[in-house]
């Protein structure tokens, strides 16, 4: 009757600014913890207590896991929670005369107080322990991803550096969770011909591919996008299902767009007078989302209804049952056509759940409840949820296919990360990669200060490669920040490169930089060598 695989990919770029007392973009992390990661943990604990399985794949990028364990950022997150609890208390007073709004103010107050309590008492300041515990109990499967979430096809001229991104991602996963991953999340589902060899050589069993990456592969599989395929390197590729995913993803027709659900855009940061929200927005005058949102989507109108928690909860149940039922029906149709056990692979950005789609974690909870009710015996042959590894163990890949270059971004390839707004970055990042390789050749066995400088140079190159910076430039949102970040990492790298050439490395600046960007503390610069790249042939 088929299976359904749910995969949640969690990622944020390294955003850490000790040089500033507060830094706006650090809120990306704080909002994600409060709106997504903690609610998901809560949801999973509830299901666990009730004996309801919730098999799914989850992935946390190394930059995100670093930030989730960083004392500076967690201290700042605690301050963020304190401020939000304070604002929630003021909101309780402000809304005291209006029960409909007051209920919501109470909900926000309870949530932020609970976040603060759980962060410290339940997880001792490190929420990754919550996910690790669930993975150790076999409730979820944790996957690895690339070190700095680079869009790998744009660096395909440097296979050794891509292998480094993969291996560092796996090592980071081992350090963070104390276990080896079997699966790998390709950032943005970015695949190019030959990447499967790097994945296989790293000891991984599978990755997730864009749908057309497999459909347009050689040969196009007889199972379409409904079974993993074996690549020529022997690793499995699970193609993403686009058919059922649109029920969730579509911003106008998907479940999150239901008029009953909470509106993402209406926020008191924009709605209330500056003298009231001033202490809780940026620099006291720049309006931002505070997280306090009182309205339902309602429809294409500015006259929004007040959000009704109970109606939202009821609709979540309906949508979870609808998703499960429709997936099961779809699977039954597929079973008739394919002749093999179909599997529907549905990867999502974790931050969709809770951050943008407020009811997302509840929807997941209800989905697993429905699945359990419909499939009470987990191992029987009815349609139900499964992890990627469990599926592979039971059924294996269907046939051998060489996947094609692809991504899940707009246009299906590299357009999001390579257009007029961001293509300039590649000249400089590629140059930095080659100069880094040159440094490895020139300084093959350094120690002391020079080794520290070389390791930091390698860190800066890796950080410049993050897919987020060209993504943001393309999206035209916080463009100045993204441009400055690329420039900053290249500046730091160049300064070290030139200092090593002139033998005048400044200890004070290097120490400051190591403290500012301390990700991958065990990084060995010697791994940044290039031996087979075409580019290096020219260099040599």
């Amino acid at each position: 009757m088929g299976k359904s695989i749910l995969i949640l990919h969690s990622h944020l770029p390294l955003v850490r600014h000790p040089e500033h007392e507060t830094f706006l973009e650090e809120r990306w992390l704080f909002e994600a913890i409060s709106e997504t990661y903690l609610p998901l943990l809560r949801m999973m604990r509830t299901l666990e207590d009730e004996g309801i399985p919730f098999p799914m794949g989850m992935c946390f990028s190394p930059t995100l896991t670093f930030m989730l364990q960083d004392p500076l950022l967690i201290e700042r997150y605690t301050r963020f929670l304190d401020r939000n609890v304070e604002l929630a208390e003021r909101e309780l007073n402000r809304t005291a005369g209006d029960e409909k709004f007051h209920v919501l103010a109470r909900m926000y107050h309870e949530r932020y107080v609970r976040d603060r309590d759980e962060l410290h008492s339940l997880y001792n300041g490190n929420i990754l322990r919550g996910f690790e515990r669930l993975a150790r109990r076999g409730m979820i499967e944790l996957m690895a991803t690339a070190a700095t979430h680079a869009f790998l096809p744009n660096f395909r001229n440097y296979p050794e550096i891509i292998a480094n991104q993969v291996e560092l991602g796996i090592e980071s996963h081992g350090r963070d969770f104390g276990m080896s991953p079997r699966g790998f999340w390709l950032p943005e589902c970015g695949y190019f011909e030959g990447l499967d060899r790097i994945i296989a050589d790293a000891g991984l069993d599978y990755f997730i591919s864009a749908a057309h990456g497999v459909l347009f592969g050689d040969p196009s599989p007889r199972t379409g996008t409904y079974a993993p395929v074996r690549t020529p390197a022997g690793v499995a590729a699970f193609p993403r299902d686009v058919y059922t995913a649109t029920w969730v993803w579509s911003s106008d027709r998907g479940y999150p767009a239901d008029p009953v659900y909470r509106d993402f855009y209406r926020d008191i940061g924009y709605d209330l007078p500056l003298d009231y929200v001033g202490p809780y927005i940026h620099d006291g005058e720049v309006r931002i989302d505070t997280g306090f949102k009182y309205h339902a989507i309602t429809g294409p109108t500015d006259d929004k209804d007040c959000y009704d928690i109970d109606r939202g909860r009821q609709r979540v149940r309906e949508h979870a049952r609808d998703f499960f039922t429709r997936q099961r029906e779809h699977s039954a149709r597929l079973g008739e056509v394919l002749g093999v056990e179909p599997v529907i692979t549905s990867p999502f950005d974790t931050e969709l759940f809770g951050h943008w789609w407020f009811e997302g974690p509840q929807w997941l909870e209800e989905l697993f409840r429905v699945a359990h009710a419909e499939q009470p015996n987990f191992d029987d042959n009815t349609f139900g949820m499964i992890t990627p590894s469990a599926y592979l163990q039971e059924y294996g890949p269907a046939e051998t296919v060489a996947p094609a270059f692809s991504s899940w971004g707009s246009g299906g390839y590299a357009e999001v990360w390579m257009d007029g707004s961001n293509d300039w970055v590649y000249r400089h990042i590629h140059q930095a990669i080659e100069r880094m390789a040159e440094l490895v050749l020139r300084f093959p066995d350094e120690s002391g200060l020079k080794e520290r400088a070389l390791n930091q140079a390698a860190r800066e190159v890796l950080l410049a490669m993050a897919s987020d910076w060209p993504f943001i430039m393309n999206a035209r949102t916080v463009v100045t920040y993204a441009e400055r970040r690329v420039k900053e990492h290249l500046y730091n790298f160049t300064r070290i490169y030139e200092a090593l050439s002139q033998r005048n490395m400044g200890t004070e600046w290097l120490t400051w930089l190591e403290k500012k960007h301390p990700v991958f503390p065990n990084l060995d610069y010697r791994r940044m060598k290039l031996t087979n790249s075409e580019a290096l042939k020219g260099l040599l």
Partner: protein
Amino acid sequence: MIRRRLEELSLQALFTLANQNGLELGPDTDRFSVIEELTELISENQEDRERNNSVTVRIQQKKFALINDDDTPLTGEQLDRFELPPEYETNRITLLLRDPHWAFTYWDLNSGKRREYSESTRFDGLFLRILEVESENEEIVIRDSFEIPVQLSDSSWYIHIPRQKTSYRIQLVGRNNHRRELLAVSNRIYVPRASLPMPVESMTPEQMGLYELCGMEYLEVNPFGSDLSLKEQE
């Protein structure tokens, strides 16, 4: 934030910005109206971009949605003074595949060669020579080629790829003193198929049924390989 930024600009700068964005404003248009028009245009453009993005990209944008525009504080005087070089002191060309229809290339010319060309009275231009090559060979076996003239001031270009399931390289060529001078050769890229392997009319009913179940209409690409992507680019 957009409005605040605009309000900081001089009237002349506002008119220049309006002109660059194709806004036709009379010379007597007052400052307030120029800012209004520009704000509206910028937010319309933003909405268009969002509409054209795939759902995965739109969701991802929400992660980075704090404010509509940024006002990033500076992080240090030395960094602010640091400028990325427009080019590096070498002759080389790099080819990157953006999608099966378009590639991006960037190149560097060392300052000596640049000076030689710019001072030469017999310099006849710089060309990108796009070579369709044998896929599997290390040596360049050329099947077909075409040229694109570029300016000495150019350093990058988007190239329409005429054929899929084949490989390409680019040569950077200068013409000077009636001679063709090969300045650099790029890496090789392989351009994959941009569609399903068989045309729709050759599909069996079973295949058609399967592809329908796969949700072809929701793919980010046209599975039947029309030239839609090319038209969009043009």
